């Protein structure tokens, strides 16, 4: 039976090792290896080789295939002194990885040589608990959760659609949520606008939303804008910096205005709308699909476009459509999955039926087309009120 030392020597004889100088050259090369830190979490959080990913030795075999599906990809493993990474290299060779090296001397030598290190950003214990169900999902993980905490999402409207999307975005830990709404909480809102409550009747919706969301999640910041989005204030509001916009507006002028602004600022716009039992959702991603004007070049004349205030809406419908918008917004923040770009999702609550139609960018679109004719904000109220000669 070999001793630990004998086993280590035996393993080291069977794998390839590099010293700090060689490792540095490998990392500067074109075919840069994937750097995997196999130490424990408490060691990793105190510093790492820049760009390294963390897979503790104990989880290496189960997680490496996800991190490096291509077994020919070069991999550089390191631990504190080069022993655990030697065993790790042996395991990866047994799994069929062809190009694995272990850093002799490990992180200790790397750091002692004065080479650059970085402090990985990590969730503290409290956040790790709060977001544990996200961290467990491979597509999100700790990195993804940190990304969400850094994300900034602007919501238009703290009403039917805005309520569920704001609640789920806040719960998910989206770090900064802006809410544009110039309305006050009314009794007729409470059948569906679950951000607010009977006790908040008469309060500004944006303020009421801020209180609800910050009580749900103190990690996040909510920025209320108690104003209606207009051509005059849109640039100021967008200057605060947003990664994604969620459109839960209730009128055409705002929808055309935010569409144009999103195209010009290259910000993905998550669209949702509802009426009675039916809802629609899609994602307008500038440069990567159509915009709202490609879908509807002109708004309908007002007499043909009843609002929810006139036609009514099933209370839970915005819950479903607004949650879909939140899901799309989270995917966009994380950069994962297939967002609803170029697809309009239709939901019919009475029939319990989802259907989908294809949306295409219109090369003749006046805003996102090949030769745009609208390049600055117009009078959106006027554009939507009558029948302009051309749009």
């Amino acid at each position: 039976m070999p001793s630990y030392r004998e086993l280590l020597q035996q393993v080291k004889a069977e794998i390839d090792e590099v010293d700090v100088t060689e490792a540095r050259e490998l990392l500067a090369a074109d075919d840069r290896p994937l750097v995997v830190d196999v130490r424990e979490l408490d060691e990793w959080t105190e510093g790492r080789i820049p760009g390294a990913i963390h897979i503790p030795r104990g989880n290496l075999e189960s997680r490496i295939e996800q991190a490096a599906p291509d077994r020919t990809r070069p991999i550089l493993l390191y631990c504190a002194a080069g022993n655990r990474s030697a065993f790790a290299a042996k395991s990866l060779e047994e799994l069929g990885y062809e190009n694995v090296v272990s850093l002799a001397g490990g992180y200790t030598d790397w750091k002692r040589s004065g080479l650059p290190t970085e402090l990985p950003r990590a969730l503290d214990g409290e956040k790790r608990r709060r977001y544990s169900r996200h961290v467990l999902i491979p597509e999100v993980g700790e990195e993804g959760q940190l990304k969400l905490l850094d994300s900034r999402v602007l919501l238009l409207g703290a009403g039917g659609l805005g309520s569920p999307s704001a609640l789920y975005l806040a719960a998910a830990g989206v770090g900064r949520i802006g809410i544009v709404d110039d309305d006050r909480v009314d009794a007729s809102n409470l059948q569906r606008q679950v951000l607010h409550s009977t006790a908040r009747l008469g309060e500004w919706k944006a303020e009421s939303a801020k209180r609800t969301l910050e009580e749900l999640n103190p990690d996040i910041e909510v920025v209320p804008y108690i104003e209606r989005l207009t051509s005059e204030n849109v640039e100021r509001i967008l200057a605060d910096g947003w990664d994604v916009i969620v459109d839960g507006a209730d009128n055409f002028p705002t929808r055309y205005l935010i569409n144009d602004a999103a195209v010009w600022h290259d910000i993905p716009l998550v669209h949702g709308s509802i009426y009675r039992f039916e809802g629609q959702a899609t994602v307008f991603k500038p440069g990567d699909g159509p915009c709202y004007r490609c879908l509807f070049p002109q708004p309908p004349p007002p007499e043909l476009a009843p609002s929810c205030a006139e036609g009514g809406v099933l209370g839970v419908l915005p819950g479903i459509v607004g949650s879909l918008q939140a899901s799309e917004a989270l995917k966009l923040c994380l950069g994962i999955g297939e967002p609803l770009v170029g697809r309009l999702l239709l939901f019919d609550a009475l029939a319990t039926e989802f259907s989908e139609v294809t949306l295409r960018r219109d090369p003749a679109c006046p805003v996102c087309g090949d030769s745009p004719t609208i390049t600055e904000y117009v009078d959106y109220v006027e554009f939507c009120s009558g029948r302009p000669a051309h749009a």
Partner: protein
Amino acid sequence: MSRVRIPPQLRGEVGGAREVPAEGGTVRELLDDLMSRFPGLRPQLVEDEEIAPFVNVYVEGEDVRTLDGLDTSVENGSTVILLPAMAGGR
């Protein structure tokens, strides 16, 4: 015969039906058939003899504006969706 999905905003014009059968080998023929039976639909669907810019018509999930417009052919048994813009969010 194709099945035409009527959006909630237009159901008042067709007696409340969610879906209405219509006949026609092209979108034009199909809409003509529909509007002859439900004349109230005409101003909501057509403008200057074209599909109105605030409504979309999808045949089997494709916007007919990206196909041949009113001349887009419609196979027997197709699903046609009429989709006017709607702004509601609250």
